[in-house]
């Protein structure tokens, strides 16, 4: 009986296997990614559409865990000689990937060798700049991009009678009012503590996070974020933490539920938080630009992106590269970019897609979806606001968070904490420089 079932199952498996193996030689392109939920559906749809649009190549997307897991899986696979063709790597992994000359195939080279039409100027510079060399050669293909915005619970702000704050002093005042009127545990808060309070803060005020254009111009970069602006900002947070006018919500985005639940009425985090806000918030909300300090000259500058890009791995055949190049062209298509933008809340990466979304009136009823784009394009990026390229960035962020936590807990002063964060970070950067391929 059992055996008969087994036989039947095997027969079914065999026929399925046979029908899946195509009659023609189709070149398979493995795509490892880190998207879950609705964004995973977007990835699957993109691959399915591409596979349906032509018959020579087949893109196979595989979910490999969160960003760090996906990157580690890709690195391990490369060491074992089985790297995927395309790997989605978060923005903070950029320096690590870039340093791996030979392990990756720069996108600009890929497109040129495959003879695909490719104009790097078609992409929004605030986005493509993060993934390009200082000469403007695009190394990886921007896929999902976001930026930091300030999510605001409009109902609660109205209740306490404050406008959406524009500057940091206004934000602190609004938070104080919220704290004293019904939000005793959280006036305002943020996710990704270092991204918001060090990386974006520095770019937004046109001060360096690190020397050599934040690492874009070389691995011998030194951290410099223990300057007066960053220290002043952290001092303020420490002061407000005491009565929870500001309340720390952890290193990553695990505290975001505090906004959607209504506990924190002002919350700075990624614009990609949109999907969850829309699904869960039972109040009127919007996303405002990040606050700035009005006494800093020229502020606000422009924000930098978060998110991930697609890296093409090295050591594949010319035919495979041709397929990958075609897939990148396919992704750059204006309508497809608009689809990704609408379905995922991530930003369009081409100028044409942004213009078309605007033309269609997409931002009329959802102005908050344009906020990150306005921040990114606020001014021509300077060397302090083009992007970051620091090795070991994942662990760097952990080390910075550790020091910020010490300051918030009152164990160190803001200045001591940032000095220590810079010093410990520099040690790690030198370690990275030692191992990076020359």
């Amino acid at each position: 009986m059992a055996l008969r079932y087994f036989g039947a199952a095997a027969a079914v498996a065999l026929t399925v296997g046979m029908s899946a193996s195509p009659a023609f030689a189709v070149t398979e392109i493995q795509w490892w990614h880190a998207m879950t939920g609705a964004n995973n559906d977007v990835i699957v749809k993109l691959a399915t559409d591409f596979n349906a649009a032509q018959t020579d190549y087949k893109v196979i997307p595989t979910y490999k865990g969160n960003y760090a897991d996906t990157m580690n899986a890709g690195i391990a696979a490369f060491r074992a000689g089985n790297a995927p063709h395309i790997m989605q790597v978060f923005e903070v992994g950029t320096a690590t990937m870039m340093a791996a000359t030979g392990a990756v195939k720069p996108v600009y080279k890929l497109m040129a060798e495959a003879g695909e039409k490719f104009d790097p100027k078609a992409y929004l510079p605030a986005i493509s700049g993060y993934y390009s060399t200082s000469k403007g050669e695009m190394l990886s293909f921007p896929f999902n991009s976001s930026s930091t915005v300030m999510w605001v619970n409009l109902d609660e702000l109205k209740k306490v009678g404050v406008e959406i704050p524009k500057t940091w002093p206004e934000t602190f005042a609004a938070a104080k009012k919220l704290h004293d009127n019904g939000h005793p545990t959280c006036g305002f808060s943020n996710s990704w503590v270092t991204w918001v309070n060090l990386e974006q803060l520095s770019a937004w005020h046109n001060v360096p996070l690190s020397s050599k254009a934040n690492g874009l111009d070389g691995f011998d970069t030194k951290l410099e974020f223990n300057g007066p602006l960053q220290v002043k900002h952290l001092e303020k947070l420490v002061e407000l933490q005491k009565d929870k006018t500001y309340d720390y919500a952890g290193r990553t985005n695990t505290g975001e539920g505090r906004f959607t639940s209504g506990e924190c009425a002002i919350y700075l985090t990624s614009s990609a938080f949109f999907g969850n806000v829309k699904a869960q918030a039972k109040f009127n909300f919007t996303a405002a630009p990040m606050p700035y300090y009005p006494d800093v000259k020229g502020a606000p500058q422009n924000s930098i992106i978060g998110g991930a890009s697609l890296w093409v791995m090295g050591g594949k055949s010319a035919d495979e590269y041709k397929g990958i190049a075609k897939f990148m062209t396919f992704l750059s298509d204006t309508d497809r970019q608009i689809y990704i933008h609408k379905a995922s809340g991530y930003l369009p990466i081409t100028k044409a897609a942004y213009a078309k979304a605007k033309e269609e009136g997409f931002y009329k009823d959802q102005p908050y979806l344009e906020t990150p784009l306005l921040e990114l394009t606020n001014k021509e990026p300077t060397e302090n606001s083009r992007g970051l390229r620091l090795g070991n960035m994942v662990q760097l962020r952990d080390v910075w968070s550790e020091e910020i936590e010490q300051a918030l807990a009152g164990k160190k002063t803001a200045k001591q904490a940032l000095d220590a964060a810079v010093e410990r970070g520099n040690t790690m950067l030198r370690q990275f420089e030692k191992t990076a391929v020359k």
Partner: protein
Amino acid sequence: MQKQAIFQSKLLPYALVAPQLAIVLIFFYWPAAQAVIQSFLLQDAFGLSTSFVWFDNYLDLFSDAAYFEAIVRTFFFSFAIAVSSLSVALLLAIMADKPMRGGSLYRTLLIWPYAVAPPVVGVLWIFMLHPSLGVLSRYLREAGIDWNPLLDGNQAATLIILAAAWKQISYNFLFFLAGLASIPKSVFEAAAIDGARPMRRFWTVTFPLLSPTIFFLLVVNIVYAFFDTFGIIDTMTRGGPGTSTVTLVYKVYSDGLLGGNLGSSAAQSVILMVMVIVLTGIQFRFVERKVTY
């Protein structure tokens, strides 16, 4: 009776142990050897550039104050976890050992938590004690305690110890129950007739007779706290706040996988390996020799 088996062929015994040997070699010695080799190398994450640096990775570690802090912290965690889970388990085992109605159900329920994977334990405790989501944290706040393990290192450490100890209670409970069952009832009866009260009977009869079990469990618990708490730490605190919950194993992970510093990570693994070898050695020397079953 002759204990030795006699094989006709000289090769047969080797052939019979070969599968077992192969498993041990491939899955234990091979990776361990790799770790030792890696610990002498300086290499980027992709393995594209490699240089042999002798003991630099070890020297860097021993000149790093953070590493010593992690060692001290790990030992503190291990003892706190071992002592708390052992004492609670012993108490529960003694209570469960008494004849009572529904005793087997009670015993079964106490064993359940052992089946829960460490990361799940972490998530469960987060639900109870997360500063803004947690059920228990609300009561703590109402009781006037400023419960915020996101910023208070001692509270975060307490949280990890609680969760890790809780998971290990079942395992200890099981062994204590077996240990208690193996103590002859006549010894208790004799002590009772001599007029020893329950507390005295516990300290003079039960505890000494259980001591081999306790010692065995102590070693097992310390090894557990050294290694298996990784999942709990990773889901609950990721080493924070500050570095107050970074243990040796967490540091191996964070330096190797998050930091891409494989050489240092390998050197740390080798040091951990030595520690476990020592612990196991102690266990063999003292436990196996003293106890005759």
